[in-house]
C-alpha cells in the first residue's frame, strides 16, 4: 500500500535493478522495460517500496550507461520512452515508486552537447563543458580512475583545447558555472518528473564545480547548485520527489549534502557496509558500533541509504589499509575477485553461500537506521562470475527458473548480453525464483517475511539507535526508538551459539514480543536479561511496557 507521506523514503525499502538484467521481453538477449513491467508482481510481492533503475538512457555503454549520450531518451535495447511510461504507470498502480539514475557531473563524449561544444569555441554549447588551453589547471584534484587515466585533462583534437573529466576521458565534465547548463539539467529532471518519476539517484555529485587551489570536490559552489535544484523540484513537484546522492565519502563529509534538509533527501552510508562484513568475519561488534560513533546526526527529513551490495564492486575506499587487507583476506582469496579498491562479488558467494550469514546481514540491513537498498538477485542468493571482466560478474541475468537462460530470455545462450550464472552452487538450476517461491523456508520467502515484519513498524526507518554493550562482544544488541515505540534487535555475529546478558533495567516490566513469530518472551526485570542465540541467530523484539499504547480510547472496558 502506498505510503503517501511526503517523506515516504524514510520508511521505504529500495530495490536496485538493471533493466538489461531483469527480464527480456522482446527476445534480443537484453532485458527491457517491457520485461521489467512483466516482473512487477514479483517485486511487489517481495515487499519493497521503490525501484532504483540503473542508467536507462541512450549511451555508447563504455561505462555501463553512466556515459549518457541523450538525457531525453531510453536506450534502444531497453525500449522506448513509451515503454518506460507504461512501466512507470504499472509500478505506480502497484503502489511501487521508481527512482532513476541520473549522471549530473558529465555526459558521454558522444552527447550532442559535447559534439557541438568540441566543434568550435563559437558553438552555442561551447561553454557546456570545462575547456582549457592548459592541462595544468586544477592540479590539486586527484585522479579517480588511476588505473586508466593519467590526467583529468584530455586534449580534444578538433577544438584543440583540453577538456576536464574527473572520470573516464570519454566522460567530459559539464560546466556548472554556466547557467545554461544548470537550466538544461533542470529541464532534464523536469522531463522525467513530469512523467511521474519519483526521484533520482544522482551519480557523482561531489564534482560539479571546479576551483583552482582546491580538490574540486565537495565545494560550497557545488552545494549551492544542488540546493538550487532541490528548491526548484520541491516547488514544482509538491515536495515528495526524492533526491539520493552518491557521494562515496566519510559520513562527516557526506553530511553537508543533506544541507539543512534542503539539499539531498538521502545519501548512501558507504563506510557502514564493509564494516558489517568485517564485524561478521571477526565475530566482533566493534567495527559496526564504532562507525556509528563517527556518523553525525542528519536533519530530521533526511535519511541514510544502507546496502550490502550493489552493481559496483564492494568498495573498500572507506576502510583503513589494515581493514582492507583483512577484507581481501577474508572475502577475496582469488585475485580475480578484486577490482579497484574493492571486491567484485555478490552477497551470497561473499558469505560462502551460508544462509545463516546471509540472513544475519540482511537482518542488520533492515534494522539499522536508514532505508535499505536490496540489489536485484540478492534476495534469492544469486551468485557471480568474477571472470566476466569489470563488474559484469554481478550484473548477470536474473535467475527466474531452471528453464533456458534461467527464464530470463528465450534467445540462444550466446546472444545473452552476459551469460547466466551456471555453476553447480549458485547457478540458475539451483538458485531461482520459481523454486524458492515454492519452498516456504527459502531465502526468498525468508526475505519476504523479514520485509513484511519491517513494514509493521515505522521505528525501523525513523527511530534513533542506541547500542547496548553486553559483555559478550560477539552479540550486537541495539535499541531503536521512535515516538512511543521501542524495538530491541539482538544479533549473534558468531558461527557458534552465544549467550548474552543485556542490561534492560530501564525497561523493567516491559515484555519483549518477538516480531517474526509473535512469541511473547519473559518479562524484563531489573536483573540482566538473559538470551541465548543460535549460530548467526537474531531476534527482533518489540518492547511492550504495561500501558504502552493503552491510553484508553474510552470504549475498551465495555467493548463487547
Amino acid at each position, binding site marked *: *500500500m502506498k*505510503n503517501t507521506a511526503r517523506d515516504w523514503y524514510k520508511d521505504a525499502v529500495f530495490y536496485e535493478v538493471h533493466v538489461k538484467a531483469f527480464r527480456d521481453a522482446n527476445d534480443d538477449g537484453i532485458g527491457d522495460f517491457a520485461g521489467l513491467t512483466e516482473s512487477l508482481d514479483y517485486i511487489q510481492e517481495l*515487499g519493497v517500496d521503490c525501484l532504483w533503475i540503473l542508467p536507462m538512457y541512450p549511451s555508447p555503454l563504455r561505462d555501463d550507461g553512466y556515459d549518457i549520450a541523450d538525457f531525453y531518451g531510453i536506450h534502444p535495447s531497453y525500449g522506448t520512452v513509451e515503454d518506460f511510461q507504461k512501466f512507470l504507470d504499472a509500478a505506480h498502480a502497484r*503502489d511501487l515508486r521508481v527512482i532513476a539514475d541520473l549522471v549530473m557531473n558529465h555526459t558521454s563524449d558522444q552527447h550532442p552537447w559535447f559534439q557541438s561544444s568540441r566543434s568550435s569555441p563559437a558553438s552555442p554549447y561551447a561553454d557546456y563543458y570545462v575547456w582549457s588551453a592548459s592541462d595544468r589547471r586544477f592540479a590539486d584534484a586527484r585522479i579517480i580512475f588511476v588505473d586508466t587515466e593519467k590526467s583529468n585533462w584530455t586534449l580534444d583534437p578538433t577544438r584543440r583545447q583540453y577538456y576536464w573529466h574527473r572520470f573516464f576521458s570519454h566522460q567530459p565534465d559539464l560546466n556548472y558555472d554556466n547557467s545554461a547548463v544548470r537550466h538544461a539539467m533542470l529541464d532534464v529532471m523536469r522531463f522525467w518528473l513530469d512523467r511521474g518519476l519519483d526521484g533520482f539517484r544522482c551519480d557523482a555529485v561531489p564534482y560539479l564545480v571546479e576551483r583552482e587551489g582546491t580538490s574540486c570536490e565537495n565545494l560550497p559552489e557545488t552545494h549551492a547548485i544542488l540546493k538550487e535544484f532541490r528548491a526548484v523540484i520541491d516547488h514544482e513537484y509538491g515536495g515528495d520527489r526524492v533526491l539520493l546522492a552518491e557521494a562515496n565519502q566519510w559520513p562527516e563529509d557526506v553530511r553537508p549534502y543533506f544541507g539543512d534538509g534542503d539539499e539531498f533527501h538521502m545519501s548512501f552510508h558507504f563506510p557502514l557496509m564493509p564494516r558489517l562484513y568485517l564485524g561478521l568475519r571477526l565475530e566482533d561488534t566493534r567495527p559496526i558500533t564504532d562507525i556509528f560513533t563517527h556518523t553525525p546526526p542528519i536533519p530530521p527529513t533526511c535519511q541514510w541509504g544502507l546496502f550490502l551490495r550493489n552493481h559496483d564492486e564492494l568498495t573498500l575506499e572507506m576502510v583503513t589499509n589494515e581493514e582492507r587487507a583483512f577484507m581481501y583476506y577474508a572475502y577475496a582469496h582469488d585475485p580475480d575477485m578484486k577490482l579497484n579498491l574493492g571486491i567484485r562479488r555478490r552477497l551470497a558467494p561473499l558469505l560462502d553461500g551460508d544462509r545463516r550469514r546471509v540472513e544475519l546481514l540482511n537482518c542488520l540491513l533492515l534494522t539499522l537506521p536508514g532505508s535499505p537498498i536490496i540489489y536485484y538477485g540478492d534476495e534469492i542468493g544469486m551468485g557471480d562470475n568474477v571472470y566476466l571482466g569489470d563488474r559484469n560478474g554481478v550484473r548477470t541475468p536474473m535467475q527466474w527458473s531452471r528453464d533456458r537462460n534461467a527464464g530470463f530470455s528465450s534467445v540462444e545462450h550466446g546472444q545473452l548480453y552476459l551469460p547466466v550464472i551456471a555453476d553447480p552452487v549458485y547457478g540458475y538450476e539451483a538458485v531461482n525464483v520459481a523454486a524458492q517461491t515454492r519452498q516456504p523456508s527459502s531465502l526468498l520467502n525468508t526475505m519476504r517475511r523479514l520485509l513484511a515484519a519491517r513494514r509493521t513498524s515505522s521505528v525501523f526507518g525513523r527511530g534513533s539507535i542506541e547500542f547496548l554493550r553486553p559483555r559478550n562482544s560477539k552479540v550486537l544488541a541495539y535499541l531503536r526508538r521512535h515516538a512511543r515505540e521501542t524495538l530491541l534487535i539482538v544479533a549473534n555475529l558468531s558461527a557458534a551459539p552465544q549467550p548474552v546478558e543485556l542490561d534492560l533495567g530501564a525497561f523493567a516490566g516491559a515484555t519483549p514480543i518477538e516480531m517474526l513469530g509473535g512469541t511473547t518472551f519473559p518479562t524484563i526485570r531489573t536483573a540482566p536479561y538473559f538470551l541465548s542465540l543460535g549460530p548467526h541467530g537474531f531476534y527482533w523484539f518489540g518492547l511492550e511496557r504495561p500501558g504502552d499504547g493503552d*491510553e484508553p480510547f*474510552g470504549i475498551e472496558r*465495555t*467493548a*463487547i
Partner: protein
Amino acid sequence: MSAVAVGPELPPDVDRQVDGLAPAELAVGVLTYNNAATVPAVVEAVRGGLEKHFTGARAVLINADAGSSDATVDRLADSGLPFVRARHEAPAAQLGAVPFHGVPGRGAALRLAVAVARRLGARALLVLEADVTSITGDWLERLLRPVLEGGADLVMPIHARHRYDGTITNLVLAPLVGSLFGRRLHQPLSGPRALSARALERLGTEPRWPESGRSTTDLWIAGTAIAEGLSVHEARLGRWRVESSTRSTDLPTMVAQTLGAVFAVMEDYEDLWLPTTNWLAVPADGPPALPSDEPVQIDVERMVGAFTRGLRDLGTIWEHVLAPDTLGDVLSLGADDVARFRFPDDLWARVVYDFALGYHWSVVYREHLLRSLVPLYLGRTAAYVLATRPRDAAASEEALGVVADAFEREKPYLVDRWR
C-alpha cells in the same frame, strides 16, 4: 470432582450426583472460573429470584467449573440449593489468558449444563455468568418466564447499556450474526440465557457440538435453535456490570476472539446461515429502555489515528483480505479531518464480509487476519461516535438499525463469494 471431558455421557462423579437428586423443574447453571469474590452476589440473586418469582418450584444449581483454585465452588455449594458440581476441561492457553466471556472452555461448560439439566428433566435451564454482579432476582423471571409460559425455547439477553458501550457487539457482532441467522439478536455473545426442555432435548441429541475449547458454542446454540425453527426470544435485563480481573480488555484480543468465534461458526456450520434469506423480528420481553447517553470520554481522534496507522502498516495484509474495490473505498476514506470522518455502512458490511471470506479461504494466517481488523473497527467506531454524538440515544439506536440493514442488504455479496 473429575476432569473428564464431557461426552455424550456425564462424567461418573456427576452422574452419581445427579442420580442422588430428585427431578427438578428448573436448572440454574453457573459457569465459573475463580469467581469467589463475585459468586455470592449471583447466588443471592438466584435465591431471591426463585423465592420471589418461582415459589415452590424445585430448582437445582449446576456449577460447571473450569478448575477454580479459589473458593468459588465452595461458595456455590453453600447456597442451600440442591447442587451439582462438575469440573470440565479447558484448554491450558485459556486458563492462562481467559477469553472475553470469562470461562475457559465455556463450550464444555455449556454442554455439561445442558446434559445435567436434561437428566434432571428440567423444564428450563438458566445459564448465568459468575462475575456479573449487576444481576438481580428479576433477571430470572425475565429469562425464564418466556420459556415456562411464553413458548420460548431460547431466551437471549438485552442488557441496558450506555449507547457507546458494546461497540464490538453493536457494530460488528450483532449485525453480522443477525444477517447470518435471520434474527436481529442484540447481544448474541452475552452470557446469560435460558433454554427450554425442547431446546435441551434437541441440543442434547445433537452430534455436532463444537469442539469444547472454542468459544463458538453460544453462537452455535443460537444458530441451531433458529435453523431448527425453535422459538427465540430476547429478554430486556438491567445493567450489565462485570467485576472480573481475568476477562481481557485488550481490544485486539477481544476483536479476534469474538469475531473469530463468529467466523468459526460460519466455517463449521454453513447450513445454519448460508440458506437464510429472510429476516424476522425477535420478540422481546421486559420494559423497553433506551441506552443511557450521559457524556463519556471517548478519544475519537486517537481512534481515527489508529485507523490511519492501520492504512499504513497493515496494507500488505488488507491487500490479501479485502476485495480490490473494498480496499479502494477504504483507502479513499478521508481521515485528515477527524471531525468529518465517516465510514459508510455498506462499505463496513463489505469489509467485515471480506474478512469472513479471508478467514474462510485462509488467505493469511487467521490470527493475523482477525487482529488486522482492529484499526478498521476503530475507524468504524469513531465514525459512529462522530455521527451520533450530536444526537440523542434514540438516534444512536436508529443508526445501529441502519448498520444491520446494510449487513442484510450485502449478504448476497458474502454468499456469492463463499462457495
